[in-house]
Every structure is written in structure tokens, then in C-alpha cells.
């Protein structure tokens, strides 16, 4: 193996006599049992059972806790550590698969689906995606999925699951190997991998069919391959032997993989470019201070990535600066207004006017507090043990950003930016936290109570992250007939989208609410009027009791051909600020029935479809 020899690498250690010999086999069975329990809980949740949530969380925490307990032990071979970390990563991916086993159900998944469907239909890239226009300019994930579909005959959903699953597997192996190089210990690498799995996005967000979930594993792989390159270089320097071709081979592979990440996602590529550049810069500074830092960064990879990124930005994805700029600008402005008292801070753990259960609030806060408290100790340990290690230095700086991402959650429009940053910040935070846990568990004959407490603490961080990462009432599947909010899993809405494609053909302009627009735009292949892509948003047509001048203007300016209304809009409050997306007024009251029944009185509309909850109107004449 190239690079520095790793402590206990490849070693097989006997199991301690003073503990039950729970090893990889037993833990695989435990993971299987827990996943079966989660499958039962998800099924019960769809049927509206009240105990489903308890079963789900007990099984999920139980699975994480037994793995943490085993990996905290000192007498675990490296092979078993790698196996357990990978197994847990795969099992957590399957939790998402079990939540939506029949099709994509997450908002971003529908948006990405539209890009894939357009590529399949036309055989070419860069079409128009009305749900998320920028997605069409970053089709990397869709290409991998479509490649698999074309040669295997798989459908879009199973092929998407397979591609994201492969990415998930790739990411967790990369994380373990990166952390192993950084800390020099497979045990600390295993603990750091567990800490990374506690990031709020790991359970659901990074498992969904979305371009970031696909690009992140590629970027982690590029980072690992760069680490292997620099590690091989360190080895050459230490041994005094001439460098072979292997070092450059690693770099070549890293460059190729990073270039493939560029057409896959925007912001994660820029963040990794920053990380790689920072790593190189810190190595340069450390070389001045200590002559010979270990794991020094290379300029070549960020240079290749920057060139590829600029080429893609200039010739393929010119909308990226505007898209990212508006999101970042809103977040910064929102934070500044909260800090200056111009805007009330956001209520934490509240969504759609509903407050999360007490235990979830406590777990979320407790997890964040534990990480913030652990951080300074971990930083001191990183300084003492690894200050000549340029990569650890870089990751420790990334870890310092963690408290700032928590503050972003207080600003109404900063929460998304804060959320999006966590999987990158945890790349630094995880090894720093692992140093502390590794130190606390340093005793070779760690008592069962102490080990249980530490496994409990790690599991607490994991649960806190999981509840922070996903709206609490969507953590389990929602019954299709749940009162109030429209759900994308609603069979009637799905049937209407399928009907539109079959009877109206694709690419009709449709005015509808935000949730139904996801189905209409993906499954139905229509062009829903959205604030993201249309000349005007659809909400003025749907929100008022009378169409009015604004509604008339929207119908004409948007060239609306069909209007789809969902009666469930009048039966509850929205999960977010409103049912209609960005720019629409905040809804504090339930939508009046008149807002939807007004269409029956308009002589230029024909009602052409009715399934009870869903009606579709056609604009048959010019608006008078």
C-alpha cells in the first residue's frame, strides 16, 4: 500500500474476553432486523398508525448505537471497522429506500426527474426544466442514470436508486479512508465516519435522487485520490527512494473524477475547489513554518477543477452565478436584518404552524450543543497531535465554521444556506470530534458503562442530526389521505399528471400550486408556471376569491392553457409559508373555497377533468 503505514492496518485482533463477542456477523443481523422494523414502521405510518414513529426511531437509534458500541472498542480489526462503517452507511441509505419504495417522493427528486425525462425523450442534453431550470445545465447524475437505464433496461426509479446507492457506498468508503489518512488510525477513522453520519443531511437529503447527492461522492473520491497522491509523495520523501509512476497515477485519477463532478453540481464543486485550494495554501504556509508538513496539498487538482469549472460556467451553465447569487444574497440579507433587529428571528422546530414534538426539539438542540462543546477540545487535540498535518489543519478550519451554520438557522432565509453547508462542514467537524471520542475511549479495557455512555452520546448526536435534517412530520411516509396539506404521494394528483400526459400531450402551460406542479412537471411532462422559470408565477390565478386584473394578466402573460386545482388546498395550512412557492403571500388562514370554485363561473374556461379532489380547466377562449 502506498503512503504512510497505518496503525493496525490489516491487523486481525482477537475479541475481548470480558465482553460478549458481538462482531460483524451479529451486527449485520442486527442491521437487518432494524431495517425490517423500520419497514414495518413506514408501512404503519402510511396507514396512519400512532405507534409507527416510536418503532421507527427505536429501530434507527438502536441500529446506530450497536455499531457505535462495537466501533468504540479497542479490539476491532481494521477489516471489521471498514466493514461495519460501510454496512452502516448502506443500511442508512436503505432507510430512505424503505421510506419511498415505489417511486420518488421528495421535492428535489421530482425536479431532477424532469431533467432525466427530457434527456430520455430527446436523446440530448440541456433542455428546459420549468421546475428547476439550473438542473438541466448540470445533468451528470441523469447521465449516469440514463446510461444504466439504456444498457440494462431498468426504469428511471430503480436506475436512480442504483446510481445514488453506488454514490452512497463510494462516499462512505472515501470518508473512512480520508479520515484514516488524516488521523493515522483506523479506529479514529471509524469514529469520524460515525460522526459524519450524524450530519443532518446524511439520512435523507444525501440519499435522495438529486444532483448534490451524486456530486458529493465524486468530490470525496477526488479528495481521497489527491490524499493518496500526496501520501505517496510523503512516503517517497521519507524513504529517499525515487518516486514511481503511482503518485502521478493517483493525481490523474483524481483529476478525471473531479472533472466529472463539474457537470454534476454547482455549489459543491465550488466548495471543494475552495477546500482543495485552502489545503494547498495551508501546506505552503506550513512548509515555511515547519519545513516538512505531512499530507500537503497539491495545486494541480484545484487548477484542473477551476479550469473545468470555468469552461462549464462560460459555455454550458451561464445561469449559475445568478442562481447561486440570489440564494446567497437572500441568506446574507436575512441574517443581517435579523442581527440588526429589522426582522424577527425564525421559530426553530416549527413548520406549517405545527411545533415539533418535545423530544425532537431536545434531541436537535442537545446534538448541536454537544458538538459545539466538543469542538474546542477536538481543536486543541488536533493542534497538539496533527499540527504538521496540512489536511487536518484544513479540516479543523472547516470545523470552526460549524457554530456559524447554526446561527444561520435563526434567519428565515438563511436556514437553507445553513442546511446546505452542513455536509461540507462535517467533513472537518467529524475527525475533530472523533479525536475527542477516541481520547475518551483510549483505555484498552474500557468499562461497559463508559462505552455504553459514549455510544449513547454518539447516537444522540446522530438522532439530533436526523431530526434537524428533515421536517418532523415528513420523516416517515405520509398517509395519502392526510387532512390538509397536499402531498406529492397523493394518488389522485399522480393520476391527474399521468392523465395529462396521455390525453393532452407534453409541454402544455399549466397553472397550479407548488406541490402539484412537481407532479405535473415531472410525471406529466407539462410546463407548470413557476416563479423559477415562468414569465409570471401562477399564484395570482389561484389564491384569491375572484380572478381580478392580476389573475387575468397572469393568464395572458403566462400563456396559460390549463389550470389544475386541488381541493385539498382548502382543507389545511401549507407546510411552508404558502402553497405556491417563492413570491406568493404568506398564508396564515386556510384558502377559501371560493378561490377554487370561482373557475366554474368563468365563461372562457371549460372543465375537462374531474376526479373529486382534482379538477382541470382548459382556457378555451381569450380572456375577455
Amino acid at each position, binding site marked *: 500500500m502506498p503512503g504512510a503505514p497505518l496503525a493496525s492496518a490489516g491487523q486481525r485482533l482477537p475479541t475481548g474476553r470480558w465482553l460478549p463477542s458481538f*462482531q460483524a*456477523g451479529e*451486527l*449485520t*443481523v442486527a442491521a*437487518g432486523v432494524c*431495517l*425490517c422494523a423500520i*419497514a414495518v414502521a413506514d408501512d404503519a405510518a*402510511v396507514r396512519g398508525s400512532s405507534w409507527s414513529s416510536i418503532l421507527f426511531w427505536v429501530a434507527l437509534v438502536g441500529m446506530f448505537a450497536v455499531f457505535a458500541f462495537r466501533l468504540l472498542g479497542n479490539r476491532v480489526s481494521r477489516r471489521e471497522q471498514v466493514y461495519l462503517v460501510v454496512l452502516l452507511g448502506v*443500511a442508512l441509505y*436503505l432507510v430512505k*429506500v*424503505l421510506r419511498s419504495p*415505489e417511486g420518488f417522493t421528495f421535492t428535489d427528486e421530482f425536479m431532477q426527474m424532469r431533467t432525466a425525462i427530457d*434527456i430520455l425523450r*430527446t436523446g440530448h442534453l*440541456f433542455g428546459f426544466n420549468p421546475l428547476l431550470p439550473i438542473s438541466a445545465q448540470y445533468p451528470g447524475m441523469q*447521465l449516469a442514470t*440514463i*446510461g*444504466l437505464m*439504456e*444498457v*440494462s*433496461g*431498468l426504469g428511471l426509479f430503480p436506475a436512480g436508486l442504483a*446510481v445514488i446507492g*453506488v454514490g452512497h*457506498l*463510494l462516499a462512505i*468508503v472515501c470518508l473512512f*479512508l480520508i479520515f484514516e489518512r488524516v488521523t493515522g488510525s483506523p479506529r479514529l477513522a471509524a469514529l469520524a465516519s460515525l460522526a459524519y453520519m450524524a450530519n443532518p443531511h446524511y439520512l435523507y437529503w444525501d440519499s435522495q435522487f438529486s444532483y448534490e447527492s*451524486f456530486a458529493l*461522492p*465524486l468530490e470525496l*473520491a477526488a479528495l*481521497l*485520490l489527491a490524499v*493518496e497522491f500526496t501520501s505517496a509523495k510523503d512516503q517517497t520523501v521519507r524513504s529517499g527512494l525515487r518516486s514511481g509512476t*503511482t503518485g502521478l*497515477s*493517483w493525481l490523474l*485519477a483524481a483529476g*478525471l*473524477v473531479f*472533472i*466529472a463532478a463539474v457537470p*454534476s453540481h454547482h455549489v459543491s464543486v465550488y466548495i471543494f475547489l475552495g477546500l482543495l485550494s485552502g489545503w494547498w495554501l495551508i501546506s505552503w504556509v506550513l512548509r515555511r513554518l515547519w519545513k516538512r508538513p505531512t499530507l500537503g496539498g497539491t495545486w494541480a487538482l484545484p487548477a484542473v477543477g477551476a479550469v473545468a469549472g470555468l469552461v462549464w460556467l462560460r459555455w454550458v451553465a451561464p445561469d449559475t452565478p445568478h442562481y447561486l447569487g440570489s440564494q446567497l444574497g437572500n441568506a446574507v440579507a436575512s441574517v443581517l436584518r435579523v442581527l440588526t433587529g429589522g426582522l424577527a428571528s425564525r421559530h426553530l422546530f416549527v413548520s406549517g404552524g405545527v411545533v415539533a414534538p418535545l423530544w425532537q426539539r431536545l434531541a436537535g438542540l442537545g446534538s448541536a450543543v454537544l458538538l459545539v462543546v466538543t469542538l474546542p477540545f477536538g481543536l486543541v487535540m488536533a493542534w497538539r497531535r496533527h499540527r504538521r498535518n496540512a489536511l487536518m489543519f484544513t479540516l479543523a478550519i472547516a470545523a470552526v465554521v460549524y457554530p456559524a451554520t447554526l446561527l444561520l438557522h435563526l434567519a428565515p432565509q438563511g436556514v437553507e444556506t445553513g442546511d446546505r453547508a452542513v455536509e461540507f462542514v462535517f467533513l472537518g467537524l467529524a475527525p475533530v470530534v472523533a479525536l475527542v471520542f477516541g481520547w475518551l475511549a483510549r483505555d484498552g479495557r474500557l468499562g461497559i458503562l463508559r462505552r455504553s455512555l459514549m455510544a449513547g452520546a454518539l447516537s444522540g448526536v446522530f438522532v439530533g442530526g436526523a431530526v434537524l435534517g428533515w421536517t418532523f412530520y415528513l420523516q416517515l*411516509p405520509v398517509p395519502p*389521505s392526510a387532512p390538509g396539506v397536499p402531498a406529492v404521494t397523493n394518488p*389522485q394528483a399522480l*393520476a391527474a399528471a399521468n392523465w395529462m400526459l396521455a390525453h393532452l400531450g407534453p409541454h402544455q402551460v399549466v397553472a397550479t400550486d407548488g406541490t402539484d406542479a412537481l407532479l405535473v412537471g415531472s410525471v406529466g411532462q407539462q410546463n407548470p408556471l413557476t416563479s423559477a422559470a415562468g414569465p409570471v408565477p401562477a399564484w395570482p390565478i389561484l389564491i384569491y376569491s375572484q380572478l381580478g386584473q392580476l389573475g387575468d394578466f397572469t393568464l395572458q402573460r403566462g400563456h396559460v392553457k390549463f389550470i389544475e386545482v386541488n381541493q385539498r388546498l382548502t382543507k389545511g395550512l401549507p407546510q411552508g409559508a404558502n402553497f405556491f412557492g417563492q413570491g406568493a403571500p404568506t398564508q396564515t388562514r386556510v384558502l377559501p373555497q371560493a378561490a377554487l370554485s370561482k373557475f366554474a363561473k368563468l365563461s372562457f374556461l*371549460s*372543465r*375537462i*377533468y*374531474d*376526479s373529486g379532489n382534482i379538477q382541470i380547466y382548459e382556457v*378555451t377562449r381569450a380572456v375577455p
Partner: protein
Amino acid sequence: MRFRRYNWLDPGVGLLAVVCALVAIGPVSDPLRLPGGILLALVFPGLEAGRAVVPDQVGLARRLVISLALGLAIDVLGGVLLNFTPAGLTTSSWAGLLAILAVLASATAWWRHRRRARPDLPTITGPSRQMTLAAIGASLMALAVAAAVVGGRAPAGPGYAQLWTIPSSSSSAIVADIGVHSLEPTTDHFSVVVRTSSRTVTRYAFELAPGRTWTRRLDLPQTRARIEVLLYRGSVSHPYRELWLELPG
């Protein structure tokens, strides 16, 4: 050059990639298409590219990373390349590209491996208690997923029926296609009534089983009018579904 023990691997993978590509462009119903396609898209090009770029023994975990990462990278960059060809992204172009890349990579890997040690292959020891337990655990995981997928998730629910009418006009006539699709839990008796503001034009009565569709084509008057299409279910006098067409005349 002396033929070494593991030199079969790269040419063998290259050959298999070509076979998988031929299966992929062959009949859709070929049972080998699914496993062959998965190997061709996710395994062979990445494995061989990884062995070509990094020929040394690097351990199983690192070999897995190189193979998977390069495999996905080839899919992405290959797809971008195909987009700019006249063929575009089709089954044949994908199969051809992936097979060519796999063969080129396997040839390079074979050349670079000709004097090297054995590849990073997992060491399989005989069955043990741990391996048996791991197999049981993996089966339980597969069972959980299979039960969720095969068992179906959506509960029966109250059921519903879709009613639609789509007008179309030619130079000689205006017609409307009327359809009813039942997703009720049981077979139901339905009737469709078509009427103008002053009179009932026609009435259809029929039974529909769950999942079945009823359709009719209807001639419409070429004058300005409002045509109502009402669906009744069972003996209930109130319309179950209600549509109308505003005819411009």
C-alpha cells in the same frame, strides 16, 4: 512475455463488456440484459480504467473507490461526449461507447499489469459463523426492501373515479371524447348524462370494474353553447363528477 496467473482478468473483462453491449442492443426481453447492463454501466469500464491508471496493489477498499469513482466519471463524461455526436444518447450509442472504453481500458490495464503481482481481489475463506450471520443479515435487509416494494405502500383508501371530456374539431364537425376510469374499490354502476342548458342530449349507463375505462365519442353542435357532462354513481341522484365545455360556436 511469460503468461502470468492473473493475466486473464483484463482481457476477460474486456470480452465480457463486448458481450454485455451486444446483449444491451439485442432483444429487450433478454434476461441477461439486466445483469449485463449493470456490469457494463457501473462495473467494467471503471474497474478496468482503475486498473489501467493505478496498476499497483492498493487494497480492496481503495480499489473499490477507484473503480466506482472512475466508473461514474466515465458515465458522466461519456454522456457529455455522446450528446455532441449525431447519434445522441441512445441505447446503441451508450452500449458502444461503454464497451469501447472498457476494451481500451482493459488493454491498457493488461499491458501495465504484465509484470505485476496479483490484482486486489477479495480473499474468500471458507464458510464461518460470522459469514453465515452476515449472509442472514444481508438477507434480512433484502427482505425489508422486497417487502416494502412488492407489498405495496398505498392503502386502499376511499377510491375515486376520473371523468374527462376532450373536445376536438375538424372542418366538418366538433366532437368530444368522453371517458370514465374507475379506481373505486369495487365494481360500480355508473351513468353519464350529456346535456345542454335546455335538454338532455344523451345518457349512457354501464358498469365498471376497478381499473377499467369506459369511453365514447360524441358529436357536438356547431353553435355557441355550454355542454355539461355529468357522471352519476349507483343510485345517488347528485352528480358524482361534473364537467362542462364552453363551445365558441
